[in-house]
């Protein structure tokens, strides 16, 4: 779940939140962004001319693993809770964004030069341990030799950061990221069916369903591989979670930011839960899906079951970016879930072009386990 700056100061701009890679943005375009920030400068201010998310559309695989250049924003997003050979818990994040800077019909390119494009790519990577949070960011224009998404074999790449599958399917695949002071190379396998979030992949981001995205996940991924920090390489293994999301229409004007969780519970189930914060407590929108390895799952949201999901911050931490809720109590009565979460490293700021907080967490209460949390809009 990723976000770009759901910053109060310039929330008129586009906000990308990774609610399991959910991207929302204000449709308000009455005042120009003060800080001339954000992708709104690159992509046109409104979603006019881009494709829209339509309820009832059936997602097609493997085609929908690839890029949807007619939508404004899209991402491929992996978080992993891993353990090193020495027993240290580390979290790993990799996200590649695609940004369509102009609607598909605006760019009238004679394809005479591969540098001409309306697609922009950005990628974020991080390794988080209790003591350290290493981050990196990369940008590139869409260019077949620099940054692209290829269907066969399936590949998502930005220069030397890439997800490379052995086939047209997502798995098995190798994920490699190389940066100055850290790198990782992970083997990813998964036999489980994909999980379509929301209504068969149509994921609402507000009670009135005015904004939505296409959204599917694979929360059951086995990981082995190597991570290198400051020149020291270690073997790692553990579990990972992939989210895929694309949309053209984003957060409503009233929405302030995002609290998103991917939770792996000790009864072999997984839980995706998010809260979109409105101006007051009553305006918050909650959504969750309990998922099982056989592909089954159950959706809960605050529109249909107003008080079923409860999320309360229990501890706050002042980080470089702002004051963030790093511990939570989460209760879903209909699922008999009553848990607390605690950030492994409270200082997991992603100080990139679009800053947010993202890091591994531990779970306690009715269930135990590990997971990931993303917080936006607190800076």
């Amino acid at each position: 779940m990723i976000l770009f700056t759901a910053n109060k100061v310039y929330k008129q701009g586009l906000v990308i939140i990774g609610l399991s890679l959910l991207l929302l943005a204000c449709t308000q375009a009455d005042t120009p962004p003060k800080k001339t920030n954000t992708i709104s400068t690159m992509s046109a201010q409104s979603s006019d001319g881009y494709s829209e998310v339509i309820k009832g559309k059936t997602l097609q695989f493997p085609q929908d693993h690839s890029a949807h250049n007619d939508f404004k924003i899209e991402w491929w997003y992996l978080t992993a809770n891993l353990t090193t050979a020495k027993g240290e818990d580390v979290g790993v994040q990799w996200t590649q964004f695609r940004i369509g800077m102009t609607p598909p019909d605006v760019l009238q390119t004679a394809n005479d030069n591969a540098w001409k494009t309306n697609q922009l790519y950005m990628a974020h990577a991080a390794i988080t341990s209790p003591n350290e949070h290493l981050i990196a960011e990369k940008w590139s224009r869409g260019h077949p030799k620099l940054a692209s998404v290829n269907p066969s074999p399936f590949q998502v790449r930005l220069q030397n950061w890439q997800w490379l599958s052995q086939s047209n399917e997502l798995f098995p695949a190798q994920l490699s990221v190389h940066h100055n002071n850290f790198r990782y190379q992970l083997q990813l396998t998964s036999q489980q069916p994909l999980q379509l979030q929301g209504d068969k992949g149509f994921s609402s981001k507000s009670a009135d369903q005015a904004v939505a995205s296409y959204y599917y996940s694979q929360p059951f991924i086995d990981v082995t591989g190597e991570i290198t920090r400051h020149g020291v390489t270690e073997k790692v293994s553990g579990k990972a979670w992939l989210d895929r999301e694309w949309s053209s229409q984003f957060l409503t004007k009233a929405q302030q930011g995002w609290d998103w969780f991917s939770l792996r519970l000790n009864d072999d189930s997984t839980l995706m839960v998010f809260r979109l914060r409105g101006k007051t407590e009553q305006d918050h929108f909650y959504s969750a899906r309990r998922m099982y390895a056989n592909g089954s799952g159950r959706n809960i949201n605050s529109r249909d079951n107003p008080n079923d999901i409860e999320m309360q911050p229990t501890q706050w931490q002042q980080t470089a970016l702002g004051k963030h809720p790093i511990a939570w109590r989460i209760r879903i009565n209909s699922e008999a879930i009553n848990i607390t979460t605690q950030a492994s490293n409270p200082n997991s700021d992603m100080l990139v072009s679009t800053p947010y907080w993202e890091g591994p967490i531990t779970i306690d209460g009715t269930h135990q386990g590990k997971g990931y949390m993303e917080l936006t809009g607190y800076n």
Partner: protein
Amino acid sequence: MTSLSSTTSRLVLCLRLFASHYRHAPLQASAILLGIMLAVTLLIGVYATNENAKQSYGNVSELLSKQARLTLSHQTQDTIDESIYFALANAGFDTIASIEGIATDEQGRLWRLSSSDIIAAISNGAKQDAQSTGSVISVNIPLAELLSGQAKVLMSQSQRDRINKVTNQSQTITLNKLALDIITIDDHWGLGSALLADISLAQPLLNMQGKLSYIAVFSADNAQTDNQLIARLTDTLTQAGIDASQLHFSTQSSEGESLNALTASFHLNLDAMSMLAFVVGLFIAYNGVRYSLMKRQKLFVQIMQQGLDRHSVMLALSIELILLVFIGCVLGFIVGLQLSQWLQPMVAITLEQLYGAKLLPGNWQWHWFVQALVLTLSAAFAACIPMLISLVNTPLAQGAQKKPQNKQFNIIHRRQFVIAVLLLLLCTLAFTLTTQYRHSLALLGILVVAIPLLLPQCLHWVVNFLTPFMPKGLWQYVIAETKEIIAPLALAMMAILLALCANIAMNTLVGSFEVTLKKWLDARLHADLYIRPNPNQIDALVLLLANDTKVDAVYEQWTVDSQLNRAETPQTLIPVHLVSRDHISLTDTTVFKTTTDDFWPTFTAGQSVMISEPLSIKYHLNLGDKVELSQLKEHTLTIGAIYYDYGNPKGEVIMSQPLWQQSPLPAKPISLAVTYQGELTTLQNNISQQLNLSSAYMYSQQRIKTEAITIFNKTFSITVVLNSLTLLVAAIGLFSACVMLTQARQAPLARLYALGVSRNQLRIMVIVQMLFIVILTCLVALPTGALLGYLLIHKVTLQAFGWSIAMIWDWAAYIQVVVIAVVSCLLAVCLPLYWQTRKPLISSLQQEVL
């Protein structure tokens, strides 16, 4: 406690007294302030300009980005394939792909177009530090339009303001027949004078599909040396199956340093001129201070007679001086920064055209003000303290008599003359020994100080010489009074002499250089059309020219960057252009300074090379010296000839065509010259159409000459401007000195009038006196200016740039500066005379009493 408060009250009393003195004589305060202000203005104007330029060299950053660690280009100024960029980027190196090229607008003007992978540039810029210019998502640049290859170019606001005149404030500019929208962006992006496009537009526009000019490489790893980084890059390319042997890696630090070294003489010249102007300004200020003290001599004596101690008077005078210097410095600093804003574009053009250096807009620094203040204060005190001390220590009885002090001045002037002669002798001796332009410039500085010191004594001698020839009566009075006014006018005259000398010298240098350059161009250019196509078009061009029956001859030139190594001292690597031309071009167009007897046979046999004069002079290379070139390892060559080269501040080595072809050097020529038996535009159009070659790559002989002279004029415009400013400062100084003097002489003139001398006679008398002194000064400036010019040409320029120039005396320029001096003097005399004649006689007579 009481003594402290009484000291303070005495001091305050003194200061109030002096303040009311200046209220009554605002001209005196204005003259002092004006002098200080002008001195500081020119000092700061040039200093700020120089500092900004020097800072730019150190921080040459990639456009929209930060300073790169190194750049990677082709050894032969050829383009490189973009696959190199992909290989490096995909191996994880932080890089920017860049293209530079020339495009022509509809009027045939040339524009340098820079372009890069804009996303890489901005994101690399953001990566380097938190205080970056912006991240990709927060930039106020229409990325979507640029990335999609739309016809848009970026230009900095200040450049936009500058070229608005050329483009008629148009929103578009048509380059290579494509209309481009101009997008103006803030100066803080550091575009300077560049026109920036995205690579998606530039590749097709410059006909460079799939090609790059260079790649900028960034590295945050400071532990890694440049050589280690180069080795990693080379390994990466080799693994990607790319031949890295033709690539040239150049580190940013070395580029900054070499640019610093290359431009050092240019900046030193500017510094020297600003110091000259500073000195001239100080002369004016000093003259003002001295005059105001002279006018208050009686006042000092009176207040001391009434019980004020010398200590308080001295302290109050010092505070007065500090205040005047401070106010003058503040005013000068503000005007100086403004002047620098005005000079910078001029300097930027010079540096860009002469050295290829890009200048970025800079910020002024507080410490410049502090430096200027300290310098001015020290200079002011050094000049005024002896005068203050002698004044305050004057015995009370003597001071009250208001003695003309002429005797004292006569002694001073004689001493000055002796010192000047000694300095001149010292310079004459030292000039024969110097080979460094810095030393020569320092000696020139001494000379510049010595010349005005000669002046007052010379004036005395001339007046003494003329005295016996003057008719009795009024003319004897005139000559006697002229002697009297030499002393009060001496300083202003010295300042104007200084400015005149500098001006004459500079004009001589510029004029001589222009003549030399034109002659050289005439000899050097023998073909009708010079073409420098893209390297991949050269074969097609040769074929096209061979098939054109009207083409008389085609001459070829090869060029690569190389390093010259003196055979005896292998550690000296001198960066040079290595050049070869066909034999006819070489024999017909090379203007030799000197050659060995058997030069041509050994040259053709590949045993000797010729080197340019700048290379020979800068690195003390002489005929017969053995040298090696980096591309021709273990092949020792002899220097067989030295030729004149005024087109290139960098050293050049020419080898014969057979030797070039035997050596591991690019086989294809880089440019061609053509003699043609028809209408030249027909040939140009033909080439343009058949090879799709922009006319920017073709130069007719006439166009080269015109552009060379234009560049030349621009190069010297900054020095000419500074010189004119110095002359202006001196003229203002002369004006203020004359005004003060004429005012001071109101009483004696009124007395003469009362004795029956007519107003007309008085006017003529005063004007003749002043003109006499000014013309004498101009006469002294004639030989001394010529001497300075000679030394500038044959010592400083030769040593700094390596250019031999035949000195040509320009009478018109000399007369021009003399006229300026005479006119400002006439104005300065006539104005107070006119004021005086409007006043009743009695008030003029009262001047003396008051």
